[in-house]
């Protein structure tokens, strides 16, 4: 085994420092009592613009940014990788539309999860159950993406072996430590760590962007090398080129739909909603929409490191001797940075993958505890029982994520995030449309969700065009009626909305009851300190 000891030591030291911080975070702006979902899960809703910026950033830019996107750029170019740039650009105008209303209604009624908001608006338990189940399911492949990222770091460091236990042990230790302090400190831990992590990442990116292109003849030469590689015949199928340097007309919709679909999906995920709701007033989220794009620039430059690796001739070969694109960025760093700085970079990436993985599993566990366990299984459960259920569910979510890692093709980890998006996008009409109008009918929402889920899952399962042999190998499929390939999630959402509109018209004509709405128009504009508005009202009670 060829272990890079200096880098490994730096990684371990960084990880230990972050762990100590995580445990100390419980004392940060310490509340009288941390034992409530409001304090633990939302940090007491005390986060201002700066903290929210780091928290959202730490939440949104993950192993996806550092590992998966550059890997996709390295392997097949723009359509499979660089779409992440327009994705993170249109993300902010998209969330600007509804973030204010979502925060206000959640604040007024003490909602913590997406399913709470839907339950309050429609008073329909089957609909909020659908939203909760979808949230948990969609989070799993997203966590899986983080696991792939951490494994890539460890593999390049030379840690791990061929046996199942040796390969996964470092990963399990890292995860256990993180789960422990997250459990004691709640959302305060990732919020605090996110600040440190981001500073480290910025240093690493700055060095990588300034230092590396110069080594390989500048950006012109790098782009030329990428263009040459993408135009060369593919190794798997010599009839088609390796990848796409600049998308041609047939690929425009694929590129745009991947970007738009990902952007609309992101703020449906339980963990992003948690981060957005933890801000202290209505404007914080929107103010952040104007300053978060700084991360998008970073993402774009990171994506281009995939091209830098092409020019540098990086060979991402795993411990098993096979080429694994996910290793390309860690390998590039190890080849061209001094060992100690490789350690800093790897530490930053590893923490950057672990923190969101923790937030994601907490958010999914909250969703289960609040909207499934307490709403259905045991309405009169005690706080202690809920805590226990949360623990178990967050573990189950991680095991589910592990299944995704083992069963699906790791070659294209970016696909994990897109697969989660196919599912989570189907909850958008119930959640977002409801913030603006009560016109849509609850059963039509449920029918639309079901139609989108079935179409999306079936198409994604069989829709392998790239072609890896495993199921769920690709996120693009020919759009019926359009003829070009597009993101399956967005096609499924379109189907969802058609069913929704037709269903609503029919159900309204039949005068079927549309459930009870406990919210008023005022709720969607409420801010802290408004008259008649109290801070979180019933965070410990599930919405019935």
């Amino acid at each position, binding site marked *: 085994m060829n272990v890079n000891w200096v880098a490994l030591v730096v990684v371990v030291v960084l990880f230990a420092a972050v762990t100590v911080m995580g445990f100390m975070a419980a004392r940060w702006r310490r509340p009288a009592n941390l034992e409530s979902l409001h304090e633990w899960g939302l940090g007491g809703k005390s986060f201002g613009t700066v903290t929210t910026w780091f928290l959202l950033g730490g939440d949104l830019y993950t192993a996806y940014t550092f590992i998966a996107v550059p890997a996709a750029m390295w392997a097949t170019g723009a359509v499979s990788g660089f779409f992440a740039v327009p994705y993170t650009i249109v993300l902010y105008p998209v969330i600007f539309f509804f973030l204010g209303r979502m925060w206000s209604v959640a604040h007024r009624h003490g909602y913590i999860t997406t399913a709470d908001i839907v339950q309050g608006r429609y008073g329909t338990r089957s609909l909020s159950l659908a939203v909760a189940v979808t949230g948990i399911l969609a989070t799993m492949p997203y966590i899986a993406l983080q696991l792939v990222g951490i494994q890539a770091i460890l593999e390049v460091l030379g840690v791990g072996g061929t046996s199942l236990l040796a390969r996964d042990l470092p990963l399990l230790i890292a995860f256990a430590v993180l789960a422990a302090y997250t459990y004691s400190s709640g959302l305060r831990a990732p919020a605090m760590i996110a600040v440190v992590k981001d500073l480290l990442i910025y240093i690493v990116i700055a060095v990588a962007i300034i230092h590396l292109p110069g080594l390989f003849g500048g950006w012109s030469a790098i782009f030329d090398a990428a*263009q040459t590689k993408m135009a060369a015949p593919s190794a798997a199928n010599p009839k088609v080129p390796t990848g796409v340097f600049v998308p041609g007309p047939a690929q425009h919709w694929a590129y745009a739909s991947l970007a738009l679909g990902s952007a609309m999906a992101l703020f449906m995920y339980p963990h992003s909603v948690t981060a957005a709701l933890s801000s202290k007033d209505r404007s914080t989220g929107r103010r952040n929409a104007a300053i978060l794009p700084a991360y998008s620039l970073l993402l*774009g430059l990171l994506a281009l490191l995939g091209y830098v690796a092409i020019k540098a001739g990086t060979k991402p070969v795993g411990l098993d001797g096979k080429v694994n694109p996910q290793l390309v960025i860690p390998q590039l760093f190890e080849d061209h940075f001094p060992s100690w700085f490789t350690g800093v970079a790897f530490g930053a990436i590893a923490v950057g993958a672990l923190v969101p993985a923790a937030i994601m599993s907490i958010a999914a566990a909250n969703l289960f505890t609040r909207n499934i366990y307490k709403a259905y299984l045991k309405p009169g459960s005690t706080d202690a029982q809920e805590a226990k259920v949360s623990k178990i569910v967050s573990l189950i979510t991680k095991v589910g994520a592990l299944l995704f890692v083992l069963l699906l093709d790791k070659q294209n980890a970016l696909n994990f995030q897109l697969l989660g998006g196919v599912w989570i996008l189907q909850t958008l009409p119930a959640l977002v449309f409801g913030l603006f109008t009560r016109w849509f009918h609850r059963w039509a929402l449920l029918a639309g969700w079901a139609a989108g889920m079935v179409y999306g899952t079936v198409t994604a399962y069989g829709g392998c065009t790239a072609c890896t042999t495993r199921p769920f190998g690709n996120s693009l499929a020919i759009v019926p009626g359009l003829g070009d390939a597009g993101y399956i999630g967005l096609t499924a959402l379109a189907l969802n909305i058609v069913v929704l509109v037709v269903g609503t018209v029919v159900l309204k004509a039949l005068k079927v009851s549309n459930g009870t709405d406990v919210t008023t128009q005022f709720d969607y504009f409420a801010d802290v300190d408004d008259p008649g508005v109290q801070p979180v009202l*019933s965070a410990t009670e599930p919405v019935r």
Partner: protein
Amino acid sequence: MSSAPDTGPSDPRWRLTPTKIAVAVILVVGIVAPLLVSTYDRVEPRLLGFPFFYWYQLLWVFLAAGLCGLSFWLLKRERDAYTRTRSETDPGYADRSARR
């Protein structure tokens, strides 16, 4: 939960205003323009070695941030105006809002 004692079931802020329409237009531009791939699917002109396709999209990072900032300012202006109007009928309202 407590109800809102000083507003009925309808809220004036629910209505569509010129400001809201302007903001919606600005945001839709910020969403649609970066997705019109046909407007930037070319290599030339290059900038600092970056093909047009790549630098144009990175440029949009700043444009989108600007559009969101502009929207934020417009909505804040409208909200402040609403708070002022409310204060004339409810003297306590401004004091409570001023603490923000």
